[in-house]
């Protein structure tokens, strides 16, 4: 709220300049964002928290300032000069719905002259960002910003039968509001009606029909208290927020309603002439006696941890209107809740009042000793190791907003998965919680490709979301994306494209932490047929994934994005992606870590033997290694694929594979005879089991 320094001065004799006032108010709980100069003096932009509707007017802020500087606050008791005719004879007020309207006051002014407001009034309103309209409307606005009480004026001639009825809107009832829009009134909206129709939406906006115009002569001045929740509901349902609704929904001061009415009447008479009818028509069904509150030093000490002197406690509580009375010799004060502080209902609320005006800075800092060990998240160590490995492999971590475009999300969604859709999205392309981490990964790759960044290796540790039997489920996932060059061209090296084998190699390096991954053809439908794999934890432990078929240990998919999907997404480069379920992976990392054991280093030399064989295309490298391992040679250390080619002298349907086998004994240097023995057994096994033919060595 914009606050005029000079307006405040009418209620409290501030000596401090605006800049100092800003700092002091901020430390008392009214944050002042900025100070601007205006023709009406300095304007403070104050941020009023939702619990302080009493500070949505200059008088309330002046009360805070009075408490800050321990200065007197000018009492508020306008005494307008009234005519002999009684207001009660000119208008009748009925409240049909006291649950929606706790108090309604009406005053009547006759013979006013509608004209532009005088200079001082326009200046003040303009300084706080309000556009002057005419003297009557401007006065109600002025009093709203002065006292925080919203007011409304009707052209009395337009009020049928001079009757005001406060009631619920009728089914199908409509009203054209001041802004010229015809609005259907939602159920349970509180309206101000005359004998036949609604003339205003209570606490939100007046109706156009009964609006003050240049022809208006007699004015009905409304000052009321409406139920905060009902105003909030109506304002939300209508999509209509006004200065009035903003105050009523936070809770106006029912006592202020009548005072503000007097203040406005006095000002109207001053600037618009006419006469004020005697008295006020005041219907007050929800008058509440002031609540008794208790403040004790012991509770202050328990919560705040440091003391505040008696004198300060009493001065602060008195300045804020709590009328403290020290009960007896004990440090207990009986207080009264003022009508403008509906937010203060408990002792803790009073403690806050005392603490903030005493000054938070006066409480000494103390670092409480920790009595329990601090724990990281259960799998934090495994996740650190995982992230460290991924980063070492050259992948950059990304963070995506998990709200996805459903058309995209669908592409990567596992069959049968029910997505968690947003009921009230702001944009269609962010209207579902992603069903797969791949959706986000593709967005990140796409963004980069569209911004000239072509060589990418990215990963994300995030979640995918779904509804299972109507219950939300969040599954942590680790997602990879890579495209472009695996190695850039430099003056030293030639360039090389990232390929499926890079992805496989990288994932297997990660697998090393988790006891190894096993690969099988298959996987998600959005992967390219021949380059799609399902991943298994070699030591099992995983649960069935969402990727079809789920088998023990299966925990992810990896491969090349299918061309038709890439085309659909306008991605020209080959895209490689993988998604692994994080929980299974972390559990496997922890298990592998727990069983980590040292193997003594070999003391005798290792010997390599190469076998060049021709194999049918249907034979896999895994079959080769299994066949050799099945021989059970204890000295066998490693089996590698040293070279592989097709074509040339190799007949169609076959390929040439050079297998490099490493032997090493823990007991002795291997002899030529031993090695010859191993070799012949291996050759024989490859020939008989896999139909291999040995190429001339």
């Amino acid at each position, binding site marked *: 709220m914009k606050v005029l320094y000079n307006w405040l001065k009418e209620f409290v004799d501030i000596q401090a300049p605006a800049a100092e006032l800003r700092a002091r108010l901020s430390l008392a709980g009214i944050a002042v964002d900025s100070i601007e100069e205006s023709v009406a003096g300095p304007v403070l932009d104050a941020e009023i928290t939702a619990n302080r509707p009493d500070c949505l007017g200059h008088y309330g802020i002046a009360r805070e300032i009075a408490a800050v500087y321990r200065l007197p606050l000018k009492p508020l008791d306008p005494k307008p000069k009234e005519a002999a005719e009684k207001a009660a004879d000119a208008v009748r007020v009925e409240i049909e719905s006291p649950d929606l309207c706790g108090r309604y006051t009406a005053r009547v002014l006759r013979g006013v002259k509608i004209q532009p407001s005088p200079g001082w009034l326009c200046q003040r309103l303009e300084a706080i960002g309000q556009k002057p309209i005419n003297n009557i409307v401007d006065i109600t606005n002025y009093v709203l910003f002065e006292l925080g009480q919203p007011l409304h004026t009707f052209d009395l001639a337009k009020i049928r039968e001079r009757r005001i009825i406060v009631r619920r809107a009728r089914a199908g009832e409509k009203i054209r509001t001041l802004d010229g829009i015809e609005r259907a009134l939602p159920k349970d909206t509180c309206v101000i009606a005359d004998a036949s129709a609604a003339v205003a939406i209570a606490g939100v906006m007046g109706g156009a029909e009964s609006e003050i115009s240049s022809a208006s002569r007699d004015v009905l001045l409304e000052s009321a208290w409406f139920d905060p929740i009902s105003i909030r509901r109506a304002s939300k349902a209508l999509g209509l927020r006004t200065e009035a609704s903003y105050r009523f929904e936070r809770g106006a001061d029912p006592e202020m309603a009548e005072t503000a009415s007097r203040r406005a009447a006095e000002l109207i008479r001053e600037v618009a002439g006419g006469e004020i009818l005697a008295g006020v028509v005041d219907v007050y069904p929800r008058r509440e006696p002031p609540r008794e509150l208790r403040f004790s030093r012991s509770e202050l000490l328990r919560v705040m941890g440091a003391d505040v002197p008696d004198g300060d406690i009493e001065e602060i509580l008195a300045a804020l209107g709590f009328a403290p009375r020290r009960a007896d010799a004990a440090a207990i004060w009986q207080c009264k809740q003022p009508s403008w502080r509906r937010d203060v209902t408990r002792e*803790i609320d009073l403690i806050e009042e005392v603490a903030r005006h005493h000054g938070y*800075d006066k409480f000494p800092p103390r670092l409480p000793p920790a009595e329990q060990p601090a724990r990281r998240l259960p799998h934090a160590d495994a996740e650190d190791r995982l992230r460290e490995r991924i980063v070492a492999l*050259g992948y950059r*971590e990304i963070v995506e907003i998990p709200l996805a475009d459903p058309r995209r999300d669908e592409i990567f969604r596992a069959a049968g998965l029910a997505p968690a859709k947003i009921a*009230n999205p*702001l944009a269609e392309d962010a209207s579902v919680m992603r069903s797969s981490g791949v959706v986000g990964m593709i967005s990140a790759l796409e963004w980069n490709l569209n911004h000239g960044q072509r060589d990418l290796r990215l990963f994300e540790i995030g979640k995918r*979301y779904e509804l299972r039997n109507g219950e939300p489920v969040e599954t942590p996932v680790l997602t990879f994306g890579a495209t472009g060059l695996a190695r850039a061209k430099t003056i030293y090296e030639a360039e090389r494209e990232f390929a499926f084998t890079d992805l496989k190699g990288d994932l297997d390096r990660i697998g090393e932490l988790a006891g190894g991954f096993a690969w099988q053809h298959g996987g998600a439908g959005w992967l390219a047929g021949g380059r799609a794999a399902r991943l298994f934890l070699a030591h099992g432990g995983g649960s069935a994934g969402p990727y079809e078929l789920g088998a023990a240990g299966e925990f992810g998919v990896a491969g090349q994005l299918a061309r038709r999907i890439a085309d659909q997404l306008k991605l020209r480069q080959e895209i490689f992606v993988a998604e692994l379920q994080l929980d299974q992976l972390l559990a496997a990392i922890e298990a592998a870590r727990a069983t980590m054991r040292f193997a003594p280093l070999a003391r005798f030399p290792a010997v390599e033997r190469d076998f060049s064989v021709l194999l049918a295309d249907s034979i896999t490298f895994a079959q080769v290694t299994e066949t050799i391992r099945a021989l059970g040679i204890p000295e066998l250390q490693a089996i590698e694929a040293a070279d592989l080619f097709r074509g040339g002298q190799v007949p169609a349907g076959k390929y040439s594979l050079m297998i490099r086998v490493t032997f090493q004994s823990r007991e002795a240097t291997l002899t030529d005879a031993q090695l010859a023995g191993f070799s012949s057994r291996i050759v024989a096994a490859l020939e008989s089991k896999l139909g291999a033919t040995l190429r001339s060595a």
Partner: protein
Amino acid sequence: MTTSDPTTQTLTQLGKTNSDGVIALFADLRRRFEKEEAYQVLAGASAFNQWQALQLSWLGRKLGVLSRIKDNWLKPAPPDLRPVVGQEFQKLKAHVEAALEEKRKEIESAAEESAAAREKIDLSLPGVERPIGSRHIIRQTFDELIRIFLSIGFSVVEGPEIETPYYNFEALNIPEHHPARDNMDTFYIEGARTPHLLRTHTSPVQIRTMEKQPPPVRIVVPGKVYRRDNPDSTHGYMFHQIEGLAVDADITFCDFKGTVEYFVREFLGPHAKTRLRPSYFPFTEPSAEVDATCHICGGSGCRVCKFSGWIELFGAGMVDPAVYGFVNYDAAKLSGFAFGMGVDRLAMMKCGISELPLLYQNDVRFLRQFP
């Protein structure tokens, strides 16, 4: 080769009939070799060619000086002179070979040195760069925040992002139609069996934790939160928070202040000052905004801090007793404090990142800047 070259003639033709004459003859040849070596093989680029020519003229298989000696002197030598000729021949041969070999090495090492000098590595050229990954700046910031709070006894816990209105609002003393909900526009989930929403803050985990464990509680909660705000340079649909909660029998506002001040010094440096400003949150009372001295101007006032010298860091306060009612804690005996920090804001502030969307575009040109 001239006709006067003695090696083209036999010993007899040269009139050498005794061993002294033979020895003198070989001595002449040796001097001649040394002279040729000294004058014909020079340092420099062609040294090796000159050496090759010398080697050919002395050791060449057909036309070399030593071959001619063998053919013209040794083979036809009279029997009495043969031993001395043979002896002298071997001596000369060994000398020539050794000298030439030594010369070759000399030339080679000189060549290597000059080649090395020529091919000196240009240290201003880049080395071979292996691709290196990186952690996201949000992850880095979380790690830093968590490290600070672990050091003063806060354990890390997490909670779901898809929450119920009860945990997100009601149990935090934010009933329906509370104006505080204005600042937390909410995304709701469609089709769930019971109402669910995307949590607007990490605070629901306060409730979930207190429901599960008796006091004392000392936790921090990192995670994603969501607001139904139209995206701009400081707002997005999603951002990150870290929540803190400490509840025990004797936790006071002073403990709260000490903890917050410790955090600010650890995070922003030992010179950063802290200021608590009274504020309002439905689930804390007394509530505070925590400010730190502006990192740009150091407190003297600048555009970034709107000339106040202070930057707002996060909201916090003493746990409102109403919250204890929702988790069956005894509000008369317990007290505690809570805070909720916007991690994105802290990261942006610390690294001078101007626009929130940069954090989630995942442009590698951005990611690279936080190695």
